């Protein structure tokens, strides 16, 4: 969003009108008018940042380039913060559905192929668009085609459960693996799973008190990140003469950004909740 335009971005979506399949008849009586209504989708940006204080003595004593390493870790901190914010936003706002076709007797159950189909059905019925094109079958041993798909964003602890699913295709068995993401684990039905060690988990949240894993299935344009123009991410370095002008005892390095994640259409994203069948 533009600078100097407030801190809330408003986007408006006009609602679809009802169709009019009934003929007008003799054309003398006007049919009732419909009302044009709109939905406002608002998001308020917030500012985030953190920094390091690097003492002069640390720089003088250590053999390795501490500032260089500090910059690397700050960059990782920035991107992981973004991931965490997106994850948290989806935890609270994406419509949840429980896996119920698994076999572990919990609620939600462990993930099953049928649960994946149900989640995809829900999204497709709401006209959500797939993220990934299909991977066509090729004449290679041990490979299979992959359907057009939504991404399933989940925790790495799900990997063993996914491997147990009948019909699950590991990335190694894709007919073409030229455009894979590093986090991709495999596919089943119309879902390709991206797993991360910082995936979403709700501790002790199942009926039996087990951890519940949230698998987010976003369709195209279901959520977005809004940042402030010219303020998306800044690296800020203050040398000793600025950070500590009297004796130049320390320097600082940090990052700062202004942004917000938002769900633009709750019908186009699902939080598929499950527990594990394969114990950790």
């Amino acid at each position, binding site marked *: 969003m533009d600078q100097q335009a407030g801190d809330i971005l408003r986007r408006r979506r006009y609602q679809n009108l009802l169709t009019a399949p009934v003929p007008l008849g003799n054309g003398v009586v006007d049919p009732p008018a419909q009302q044009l209504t709109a939905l406002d989708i608002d998001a308020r940006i917030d500012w985030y940042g953190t920094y390091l204080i690097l003492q002069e003595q640390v720089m003088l004593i250590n053999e390795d380039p501490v500032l260089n390493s500090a910059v690397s870790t700050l960059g990782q901190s920035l991107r992981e913060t973004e991931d965490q914010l997106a994850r948290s936003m989806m935890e609270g706002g994406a*419509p949840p559905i429980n896996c119920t076709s698994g076999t572990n007797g919990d609620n939600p159950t462990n993930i099953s192929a049928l649960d994946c189909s149900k989640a995809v059905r829900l999204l497709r019925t709401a006209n959500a668009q797939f993220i990934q094109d299909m991977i066509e079958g090729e004449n290679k041993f041990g490979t299979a085609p992959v359907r057009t798909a939504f991404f399933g964003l989940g925790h790495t602890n799900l990997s063993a459960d996914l491997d147990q699913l009948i019909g699950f295709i590991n990335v190694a068995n894709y007919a073409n693996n030229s455009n894979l993401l590093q986090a991709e684990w495999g596919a089943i039905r119309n879902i390709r799973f991206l797993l991360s060690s910082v995936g979403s988990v709700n501790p002790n949240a199942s009926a039996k008190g087990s951890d519940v894993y949230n698998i987010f299935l976003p369709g195209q344009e279901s959520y977005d990140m809004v940042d402030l123009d010219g303020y998306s991410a800044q690296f800020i370095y203050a040398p000793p003469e600025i950070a500590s002008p009297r004796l130049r005892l320390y320097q600082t390095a940090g990052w700062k950004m202004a942004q917000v994640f938002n769900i633009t259409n709750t019908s186009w994203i699902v939080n598929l909740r499950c527990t594990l069948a394969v114990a950790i």
Partner: protein
Amino acid sequence: MSTQVVTGLFTNVASTPFFIPLHNYISEIRLKNLTMSGVTMGSVAGALTSNRIVEAFWCDYMNQGVAQIIQNGTVSGILAPMQNGVAAINGFTVYNAALGNSAAPVAIASFTPGTTTVWTTSAAHFLQVGDTVRVYGLTSAPQFGGLTMTVTAIGGGGTTFTTLLDSTGATTSVGFVQKIGNYLLPSKSLYYPQNRVIAKITNANPMVVTTLVQQNYYAGDVVTFDISSAFGVPQLTNSISGLPFQATVISANNAVGTQTVTLAVDSTNFGVFATNSGSGSNPTHWPLAASYPFSFPFMVPQGEGNINNLSSFGVLPSPLPYGNQDVLSFARQNQASNGIIVGAGDGTNSASTGGLIGSTVDVWEYRVITSAQEYPQPLTIQYV
């Protein structure tokens, strides 16, 4: 890179914990109850009172939830002796919104089924009205397992609590309850607005939805629904048309214990809540165990909108912020905050019912210090 001191005043709500948002590191906090010390502040008259905590202290070497306190002795004239001690429960708790604040689980001995549910714990649960709790491990009532609810009442000398779950027809059960938050605290999910599990839905014009957790929705907000077949009401789902069923909030009562949202929907002829074709059907109440497992029914925040036919729902004339008025209440925003929770109880250091904040409305002064250097280093810093 300096020592920081943050000071301020707050007025507590009776018997309710108070959250002080503080983004700086908390080396120590000092708190004074001015009202119970006899100091009049603004419209709150001072009253020197016997057996009330008037000062409290916490530093980062101490355990969470406790406080070193000074409590008035018996007042004699205009003076009260000061007694030194420790508040073992409901003292200070440092809060990080991203980490949440889960307490240790407490065993549930039974619950009393009804239109609201009274849960009995095997030992004192130390919960307070407004706390957010999750129940699980309910062997004879698995259909409630994993539900998150707001505590609406406390009783039984601290061994019972009430939630808005309509458990009529269910079989009582042992299990566990765990406190995972409080309606006054930022949620671990950071962002507002959030989904809410539905406790019940009326068949009326306008439709009223009760939520299990206090919701903080407002007039003009627009919600959609995510309701599995176990809970009936197919009219609120979007399984056929591809278009979501959206409803505009006419009014909301966000008070703990009420937790209702009135929507511009005539649900008179809709399906009855929790009615399904299976043996777990339990019309107007929560489904029975035979329906287990299932997805919970959710009300999902969508955005803000306006409608022009509010007269259809008995709203005459349409006051702000209704038809064609802009509202911003559902703007997605990160409401996380770090800070410190001042616990509530009976205002004494009683080991079973104590807490810094008591049953009166008092004015407090606080002083929070972030030290530039501490010796020895705080125990919370880990070296590897």
